[in-house]
């Protein structure tokens, strides 16, 4: 029965060498980019036969932590400059590859068909608004922007006991869609995903501009392919996908 172990050894060697030559990159992108990046990755794979793009979506801060702890990502796309800055200062990214590729708008949403009367930031302090959902400011850019909005109106201390912190902007959307909170801070692009469950009440103001930077991870083993993907995201086809999903130019 010596043939079986020999055959298995050959199979293992073959698959190892296949894995080494197979072109695959891992893209860690902010949760709000889920639909857009799935589309972009598909188009990238279609235009480059033999290439696979693995996507990993979570809050930008969480993704940064993963990369800082050695997660094998090749490209990082963040929903704010602050997270990217932190990554650059920790020398996690190749600074020469950092580019802004999209912009977004922060909006306040409420469960569909709910009572009206939420027209501006100050209305969030009304007693009828029992719970407000936003991302955890430490790890979710949308939460940080929301905090800026509330602090700009000097409302933070007042509404803080009513805040519910979510792990990502998509979880905020879920809380609002379920009707568990009266209001939530999400991006316009997220709100557009559930028009039947959430209503956009107003556009938030008073926060820094929402721009999305991307960069290639310094320890990437597929730096060339990663740069290729980054260039693709900045190209016309991917920008059209982003525009269709509601993103603006940076």
């Amino acid at each position, binding site marked *: 029965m010596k043939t079986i172990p020999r055959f298995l050894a050959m199979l293992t060697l073959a698959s190892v060498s296949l894995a080494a030559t197979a072109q695959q990159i891992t893209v860690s992108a902010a949760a709000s980019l889920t639909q857009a990046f799935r589309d972009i990755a598909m188009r990238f794979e279609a235009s480059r036969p033999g290439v696979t793009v693995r996507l990993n979506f979570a*809050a930008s*801060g*969480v993704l940064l*932590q993963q990369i*800082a702890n050695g997660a094998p990502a090749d490209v990082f796309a963040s929903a704010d400059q602050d997270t990217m800055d932190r990554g650059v200062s920790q020398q996690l990214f190749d600074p020469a590859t950092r580019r802004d590729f999209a912009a977004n708008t922060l909006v306040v949403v409420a469960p569909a068909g709910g009572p009206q009367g939420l027209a501006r930031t100050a209305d969030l302090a009304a007693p009828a608004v029992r*719970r407000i959902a936003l991302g*955890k400011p*430490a*790890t979710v850019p949308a939460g940080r922007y929301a905090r800026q909005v509330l602090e700009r109106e000097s409302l933070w201390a007042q509404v803080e*006991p009513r*805040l*519910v*912190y*979510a*792990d990502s902007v998509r979880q905020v959307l879920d809380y609002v869609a*379920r*009707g*568990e*909170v009266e209001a939530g801070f999400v991006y316009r692009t997220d709100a557009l995903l559930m028009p039947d469950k959430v209503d956009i009440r107003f556009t938030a103001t008073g926060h820094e501009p929402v721009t999305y930077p991307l960069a290639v991870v310094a320890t990437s083993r597929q730096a060339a392919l990663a740069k290729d993907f980054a260039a693709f995201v900045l190209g016309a086809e991917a920008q059209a996908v982003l525009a269709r999903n509601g993103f603006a130019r940076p």
Partner: protein
Amino acid sequence: MPPLLADFDAAPLALTLRVATVATGAALLLGVALGWVFARTRLPGRSVLEALCMLPLVLPPTVIGYALLVLMGRRGPVGAWLREHFDYSVIFHWHGAAIASALVALPLVLKAASTAFSQVDRDLEAAARTLQQSEWGVFLRVTLPLAWPGILAGTLLAFARAMGEFGASLMVAGSIPGQTQTASMAIYDAVQAGRDDVALLLALAVSALSVAILVASNRLLSRR
């Protein structure tokens, strides 16, 4: 005093103890009652009911959390009723975390109580009855005292389990600092935010407490 200890937020630990105590209390009452029923009676459908009660022990916490959300959420049958009649919701409230923790603690108390009751010598109970004791008297003065060490050991385990509840309580109660953020959630948040120092301190505190509880539980079990 080192800066970490000086501004260490003990609220998660206090909240964990509060949630675990309430959850274990509820699990104890229900577990002892059900344990006695399963050990002493021959109810029809008993095995199905027993399996249902043990289910939280093996179900993924996300399944339990999702089930609670569907039931107790604003649009759920129980949640909508509570909100309409009492303007009360367990979602994003520490009561929700307590319910989730009680659900996972119940099987541990139930198993221990059921085993302990079935090991009580029925002759002793019969003797008590001949001495004119009512059924309640038999239970309180003979059965329960004899079964108590086993029940307590199970309750301590249940308390440790309730302290460690994470997935289901996070889905139902959220992680609101000062209101629903238990120690497990605080560790999770600290790790996500890169605060390894806070995470380590909390993890050590919770581990030390859990070890103490397990040691006490083992002592009780070996004493029988």
